[in-house]
C-alpha cells in the first residue's frame, strides 16, 4: 500500500507500510508465543524462544508502526541508545548473579547481621 503526500510540509513523505500485514504478523507471533508457552519445552529452550519472539514483535512495532524503517538513521541511533545501556546494565549484573548461582547450593548464607568488631562485647545475661 503506497500513498502520496497529502499536505505540503506535513505529509506522508514515504510509502505507508501494509499495516494490516504487520497486525497479522504480530497476532500470529502472539499465538506462537502461547503455543511455545504451553508446549512443555525444556526451560532453556522455552525462555530462548519466548525472548526471541518478543523481540521480533518489538522490532515489528518499532520499525513499521513507529516508522523507524523509513526515518533517518540518526533517529534510529536515539532509539538504540537505551537498548545498548540496558544490555550494559545486564552485563554489569552478571558477575553478582553468576556468583550467587554458583554458591547457591554450596553455602548457606547467614541472614544475621555481621558482628561489629568496634563495639564492646555484649554484657553477660543474668
Amino acid at each position, binding site marked *: 500500500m503506497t*500513498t502520496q503526500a497529502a499536505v505540503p510540509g506535513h505529509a506522508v513523505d514515504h510509502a505507508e507500510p501494509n499495516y494490516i500485514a504487520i497486525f497479522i504478523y504480530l497476532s500470529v507471533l502472539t499465538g506462537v508465543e502461547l503455543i511455545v508457552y504451553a508446549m512443555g519445552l525444556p526451560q532453556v529452550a522455552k525462555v530462548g524462544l519466548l525472548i526471541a519472539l*518478543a523481540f521480533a514483535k518489538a522490532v515489528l512495532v518499532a520499525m513499521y508502526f513507529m516508522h523507524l524503517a523509513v526515518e533517518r538513521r540518526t533517529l534510529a541511533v*536515539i532509539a538504540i541508545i537505551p537498548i545498548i545501556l*540496558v544490555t550494559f546494565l545486564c552485563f554489569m549484573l552478571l558477575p553478582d548473579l553468576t556468583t*550467587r548461582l554458583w554458591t547457591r547450593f554450596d553455602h548457606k548464607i547467614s541472614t544475621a547481621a555481621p558482628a561489629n568488631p568496634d563495639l564492646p562485647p555484649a554484657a553477660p545475661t543474668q
Partner: protein
Amino acid sequence: MSEAAAAETHEHGAVMADQLEPSVTPGNLGKLGMWTFLAGDAMTFGAGIAAYGALRIGNPNWPSPADYLGITTTAVMTFILICSSLTMVEALSGIQHGNQSKFRGFMALTVLGGLIFLGMQAIEWHHLIGERGMSVKRDLFDATFFILTGFHGMHVTGGVVYNSVLLIRGMMGKLPQSKANLVEVAGLYWHFVDLVWILIFTFIYLI
C-alpha cells in the same frame, strides 16, 4: 513598518525557522522530542525489567507465574493493545489524507482499546489482591509484578488521556489536516506503550 523592512523580517524569520528545523525529523520537531522522551522512558522500563530478572534468577524460591497469573486474560489484553496500535496508525493515515471521519472513528477505537485494557487490568488486580492474597509488601514476586504492570498501566492511562484530547479536538473541528503531526507524535507514544507490554507479557507472565 515599510515593505522592505517587513520583507527583511519575514526573510529573517524564515532563516530562523530553517535553523530550528531538526535535521533528524524534518518538519516535525515534536517527533524528535517524543523520541528523546521515549528513549529515557525505555531506560526506566529496561532497568525495571533487568532488576526483575536479576531478582528472579538470584532467588531459588521464586514462584512460577503460571501459579498466580492468568495467561488467557493477559493474552487477550495483549491482542487488544495490538489492535489499538493498528487503529492508531489508521487514525493517523486518516488525518494525513484529510479524512476526518476516518480519523475520528479509528481514534475513538484506539481510546476504547486502551479503556478495555485498563478495565481488564483492574479486574486482574482485583482478583489477585482480593482472592489470591497478593500484595506489594508480601514478597518480591508480588512487588515486582505490581510495580512493573502498574507503571505500564499508568502509561496506558496517560495515553488514553492524550488520545482522548486529540479525539475531542478532532470532534470540535480544531484538528485540521495540517496538524497531522500532533497525531503522529501521539502515535509514537501509544506504540511505545504497546511495545513495552509485549516485553512485560513475555518476561512477567510467560517465562
